[in-house]
């Protein structure tokens, strides 16, 4: 078990009273799984991902990452985190940006160069190392930020709507690349999205969430094979899983719709 959530609750205290971002969330993620969190805004999917990364702290229940508390896991550099925006430093080259976590973690110069070269290949950005972020398209920038998260080779990759700001054509291509990257590296991936096709296409496990309070309404183990060409989205199996996700989302909304 890589990630374990046992009755995790998280309440924000605001001026308008407490907001229950997460309530009694139970989930187990095994090594090598690709888990998507899907739901409407306010369902706590990003909060849950941030709690795993120790960027938020649960107010109830227990959460474990690699058998440690999330904060211990963070200090052990157990995960790489990809944000919605690429967030590359404009004053660093692409290679310089990827080197950032390696510098902070104190890798040697030769080790850094080696790793930068490897992850640039992994995200198909070889030859772009000396470019500055403004010289790259949005999709390429996001690939560079994934490379940055992969550079120090953590077992877990947490991604918070990484392709949310990109157009659908670029998104399809990056989804395909992400799957092949996952197959090659065998990492455990937590992936937040609000796109049903994206969640179904990528995941081995789909966690459907709903808001007020943020909670899990359904966990779907995908029956799709590990090898997934893009046109798998037209198969009956795919459409059936997508249906079940949609049903889960609708059930979660309940009386509101």
């Amino acid at each position: 078990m890589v990630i374990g959530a046992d009755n995790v609750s998280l309440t924000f205290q605001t001026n308008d009273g407490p907001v229950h971002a997460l309530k009694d969330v139970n989930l187990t993620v095994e090594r090598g799984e690709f888990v998507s969190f899907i739901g409407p805004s306010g369902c706590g999917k990003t909060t849950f991902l941030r709690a795993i990364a120790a960027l938020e702290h649960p107010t109830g229940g227990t959460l474990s990452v690699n058998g440690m508390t999330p904060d211990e896991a963070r200090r052990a550099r157990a995960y790489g985190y990809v944000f919605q925006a690429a967030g590359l430093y404009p004053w660093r080259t692409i290679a310089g940006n990827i080197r950032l976590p390696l510098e902070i973690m104190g890798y040697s110069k030769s080790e850094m160069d080696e790793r930068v070269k490897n992850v640039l290949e992994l995200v198909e950005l070889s030859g772009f190392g000396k470019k500055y972020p403004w010289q790259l398209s949005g999709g390429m920038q996001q690939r560079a930020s994934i490379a940055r998260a992969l550079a120090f080779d953590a077992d877990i990759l947490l991604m918070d709507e990484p392709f949310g700001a990109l157009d659908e054509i670029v998104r399809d291509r990056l989804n395909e690349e992400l799957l092949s990257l996952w197959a090659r590296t065998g990492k455990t991936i937590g992936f937040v999205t609000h796109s049903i096709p994206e969640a179904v296409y990528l995941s081995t496990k789909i966690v459907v969430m709903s808001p007020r309070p943020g909670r899990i309404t359904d966990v779907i183990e995908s029956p799709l094979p590990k090898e997934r060409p893009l046109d798998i989205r037209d198969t009956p199996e795919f459409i059936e899983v997508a249906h079940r996700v949609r049903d889960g989302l609708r059930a979660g909304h309940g009386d509101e719709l």
Partner: protein
Amino acid sequence: MTDTPVSGAGGGIGRTARASWVARALSGGLLPVVTVVIAILAIWYVAVVPMNIKEVLTQQERAGAEIVPPSAAERRDAGRWGLVFNNFDLIGPSWSMERARLPAPHQVAQELWASTWDEEVNGRRGIVRSGTLSNRSLIYHGGVTLGATVVGFLIGAALGVALAVGIVYSRVMDLSVMPWAIISQTIPIVALAPMIIVVLYSVGLSGLVAKAVISAYLSFFPVVVGMVKGLRSPDQMQMDLLHTYNATPAQQFWRLRLPSSVPYLFASLKIGIAASLVGAIVGELPVQRGGLGARMLGGSYYGQTEQIWAALFAAAVLAAGLVWLIGWIERRTLRAMGAPT
């Protein structure tokens, strides 16, 4: 449209080449600058007439001219424009008065030339004959002011950056330093400068150091404000990213906050160095031991208005040069930091 006067002015031999050179200069932003300069000179030349009319009329009267109204007592209370229109044929000497209330631009230009090049190259005290800069030249006095400006600016900028770092990293400093920094800037520097000089003199500090302290006093504030804003400019996502790497506060400062603050720093350094020059000049007013401030006050003691204006222009040129220098360093730095060129 702009080509018409250009080809007119450049007419004759080499017309095409010269026209293209002028056209390039004009498209490079020279035209608006030249337009404004011409407008200012025009207003200045016109303003010289009413400003100097009473002295001009007194001089004309001595020379035997008929003035309207004839008595000096009446003229004292009369409006300047009225005197100009009543004695329009007598205003000729307005632009060549000695110790004019408002000297004409060419008189100021003559004074500038005389107290820079002419004084140093042809003067008895000049660098060519004596080997040292003349204490009557604006180059010497500009140098005195420049020294205090630069030293004060360096102290002020360093102090400003240090205070900004403290404010960003310490909540106590955030709450305690900023209000005092703001209050410090509400006190008129003209009132404060003599006191600073007296206090520093009593502890044995005078000359350049005393002026530099006033410069630093004026220049640290914009640097604090700009730097605090710059150091706080990274967004939450970028802070979170470093948090996921378990970066130390020092790493966060050197790798994120400091580089993020660079554009803000340079903007406030430009304001700071101009303020620093003002501080140095104000610091020279009460002391009278050289510097552009001393020249300005000296000129006003003896009614040498050209000298005041010449020193004023020297200060403006100095300020423009210093701000340009900071801008040049800024462009070099930002280019080295990967900014699009």
